[in-house]
């Protein structure tokens, strides 16, 4: 498979010119209905016609790569196909409400939210769900605040540490720190899984929680999860489930059954809402019964004694982690997806995601340490630079895997094909891996050549930041 990305150039120096380079106009606020001392003097912005804008943004889109452009096996990001009908749902004018709508007039929206809370609870094996966190990391933050509130309510406020394995997502560390915890990093065992002895040595009276994703970022299921849960619980800590890799377990295993007390769901990963170039996503959290009263507000519940739903604040709620009700349009898309798939579709999603990862791991020439895998695997580029391998893969029309992480695997290529790729595409992907592996270092270092931009000097960009068109003048 070969590839050539669109490349629009008005001259030698640039790609598609900036809006500001096309046409800019300044207007004065002198005739405004406000006194001069309350207004700015003038406003200078691009002034383009709609046809010019249509062409500008169409050209920009042509120099951008999405899941609909080709394979996107970016490990841990679950870049699966986004069904088109959920876009139609999100655009439904009946869904376009103001968040302060009286509840009795928003029963449709609340019904969708209530059903999604219910479905996520069943999928996660959790007793209560809040849809408020607007992203996975926001869910982590909310979940850790819930854990903190739980400990404090028990008068157990000496717990100052959160334990995080070294293979965890960077967000785990940052979310725990934002909530005011010291982060204790735990080295993985030789088999890529949690080191139970190290965990036992690390837990204690100061342990507030252990954050864990299962399967982990190496694609490995933590088989000792029940023992892990016992160690953490015996020490008085809580077990947090990072839902980033839940796509591997839909309908097959549930965090609640494994002993997790609190978890987040990444709706933009597991539940197929578009990643949108980096958002919006949504990161609902689920908790066991003991933690339900601390969930962020609002939650949706059935009205007592009459049909319909209302927003409610759990008794000892941590408050809010988003100004309103979270990213509603993402919730709506995810609900549509679950309502389409049902039990069998969810189970089959994981079956095909896991089959695809195992099949692709089997096909590539690079060494793949550890195993067996679930939804993703981490290949090692060995003595090749993983970043160079990734850049060269772009020339084959493939978005490369996540590179150089987790650091447990040297020159890591973390690869997650998802259920949405066919055998034919996986074979092409493997061919791309293998073709790159066979190429000389110079070719890799010069890559990519078929993309809208050649290799970009990110170090120089950081050394001399130019963050707006004003900085280019």
């Amino acid at each position, binding site marked *: 498979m070969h590839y050539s990305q669109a490349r629009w150039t008005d001259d030698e120096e640039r790609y598609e010119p900036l809006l500001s380079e096309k046409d800019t106009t300044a207007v004065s606020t002198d005739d405004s209905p406000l006194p001069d001392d309350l207004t700015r003097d003038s406003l200078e912005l691009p002034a383009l016609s*709609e046809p010019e804008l249509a062409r500008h943004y169409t050209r920009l889109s042509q*120099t951008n790569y999405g899941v609909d452009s080709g394979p996107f096996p970016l490990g841990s990001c679950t870049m699966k196909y986004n069904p088109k009908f959920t876009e139609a749902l999100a655009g439904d004018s009946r869904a376009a409400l103001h*968040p302060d709508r009286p509840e009795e*007039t928003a029963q449709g929206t609340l019904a969708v939210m209530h059903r999604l809370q219910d479905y996520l609870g069943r999928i996660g094996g959790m007793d209560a769900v809040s849809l408020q966190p607007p992203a996975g990391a926001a869910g982590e933050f909310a979940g850790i605040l819930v854990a903190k509130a739980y400990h404090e309510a028990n008068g157990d406020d000496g717990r100052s540490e959160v334990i995080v394995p070294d293979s965890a997502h*960077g967000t785990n560390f940052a979310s725990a720190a934002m909530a005011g915890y010291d982060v204790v990093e735990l080295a993985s065992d030789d088999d890529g899984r949690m080191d139970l002895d190290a965990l036992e040595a690390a837990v204690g009276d100061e342990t507030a929680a252990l954050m864990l994703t299962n399967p982990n970022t190496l694609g490995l299921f933590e088989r000792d999860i029940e023992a892990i849960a016992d160690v953490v619980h015996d020490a008085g800590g809580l077990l947090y489930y990072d839902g980033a890799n839940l796509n591997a377990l839909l309908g097959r*295993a549930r965090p609640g059954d494994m002993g997790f007390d609190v978890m987040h769901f990444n709706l933009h990963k597991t539940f197929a809402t578009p990643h949108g170039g980096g958002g919006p996503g949504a990161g609902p959290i689920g908790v066991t019964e003991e933690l339900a009263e601390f969930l962020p507000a609002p939650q949706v519940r059935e009205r007592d004694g009459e049909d319909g739903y209302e927003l409610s604040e759990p008794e000892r709620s941590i408050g809010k*982690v988003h*100004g309103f009700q979270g*990213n509603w349009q993402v919730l709506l898309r995810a609900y549509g997806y679950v309502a389409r798939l049902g039990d069998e579709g969810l189970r089959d999603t994981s079956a095909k995601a896991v089959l695809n990862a195992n099949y692709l791991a089997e096909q590539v020439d690079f060494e793949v340490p550890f195993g067996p895998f679930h939804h993703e695997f981490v290949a090692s580029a060995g003595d090749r630079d993983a970043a160079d391998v990734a850049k060269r893969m772009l020339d084959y029309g493939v978005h490369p895997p996540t590179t150089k992480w987790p650091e447990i695997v040297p020159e890591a290529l973390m690869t997650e094909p998802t259920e949405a790729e066919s055998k034919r595409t996986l074979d092409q992907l493997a061919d791309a891996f293998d073709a790159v592996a066979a190429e000389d270092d110079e070719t890799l270092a010069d890559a990519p050549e078929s993309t809208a931009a050649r290799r970009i000097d990110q170090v120089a960009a950081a050394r001399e930041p130019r963050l707006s068109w004003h900085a280019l003048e």
Partner: protein
Amino acid sequence: MTDHSRAAGESRGTPYAPHTPEATAAMLSAVGADSEDELFDVPESVAFDGELGIEARSERAARRHVEGLLSRNDDLTEFLGRGHYDHYVPAVVDDLASRSEFLTSYTQYQPEIAQGFLQALFEYQSMLVELTGLDVANCSMYDAATALGEAATLSQRVRSVSGDRVLVPERLREGKRAVLENYADGPGVQVETYPTDDANADVEGLEAALDDDVAMVYAENPTVRGTIEERLGEIGDLADDYDALFCLGIDPVALALLEEPASVGADVVVGEADTLGVPAAYGTGHGLFVTREEYLRQVPGRLVGAAADDSGRRAYTLTLQTREQHIRRERATSNICTNQAWLALRTAIHAAWLGPDGLLDLAESCVTEARDLAERFDAVDGVRAPVHDRHHFREFVARTDRPAEAVRADLAEAGYAVHAVGEHEVQVCVTETAADDADGLVAAFEEVA
């Protein structure tokens, strides 16, 4: 019944996996397994073999089902604001932003293949720099409330002397305050209030609340009650006197007309950028965050920078990623990973579509529509509007002789939504999307007020 091909009698699976039975068999054979179930390395003791009890549907049925649920929402004309605003979004925004190369892409970790989104975000940042007069805009955060939380923790980190108090106006949307409290909790920031006077900041009261322990002073323009602040420059000076950061809450439509944040001494500007590009969406928003260059390395979230590629031509890339969680982990400036990038794209397209004339016209209409509607309310018996003797932007508060909650409920019955914000106070927000229905609202108000 199903709308994708499948052999008769075969169990339903996901319609979004393209596997034929033959392909599945060949792949299983390649990995040496007899069945997919065999691939799951899950101990039996934690395996789930029950039913979730979720019904599978065809696409048509799923769509009908969800549309059926949504049809339970009443058709109500909303005159609602208080932090979430509905402006008309031109069709070109939906059309261009929905191009799947944008919509189905991810964070731009491989910039060479993501120039289009990066350039759009660079242009978004640039327009916010122009609107605020400050130096550095990130390319979207969750919403105004979380942006305020990030500003508070940033202020604590960058302040040259110690001090953990942040001061916010006593009149602040409750949700914003609640989020701020949660962001403040971990680093031990104390959230305290300063008084307001007739909805605006009471500058003398603020001065009395200031001391050397204050890391940040927050004000909003317009305020939660829709009034336009008149003494922002003095607030900026006061914050400066105490070496506190001045954080200003605002949105891009208001920025087109109101005092430029840089000129009143703002160090950080936060707010909802979604007033452009995002229709009423039950609170889905995206935050703006703009600051001075000196705080660049403390900025949360994503930044796009101009760069050069190997051929020497201009290109764009995410930059200063050493601030971010995937590099810096627990020492990151924030935990932001997925944020609201696609909504920032929509804001950029909408702003570019309006241009400076259109944006200024829109901002001016936010002043005149609210003023005109308040005058019409004031003419109703038993009503005084606006309650605050100020200039207004989009919204105003009206005093009613009848209890506000009863007025609100009766208006909802008549098909109109307004906020009840006090025992005898309702708040009304009017933008161009509701302006055509103002006659009906006034008529209904005359009936129920």
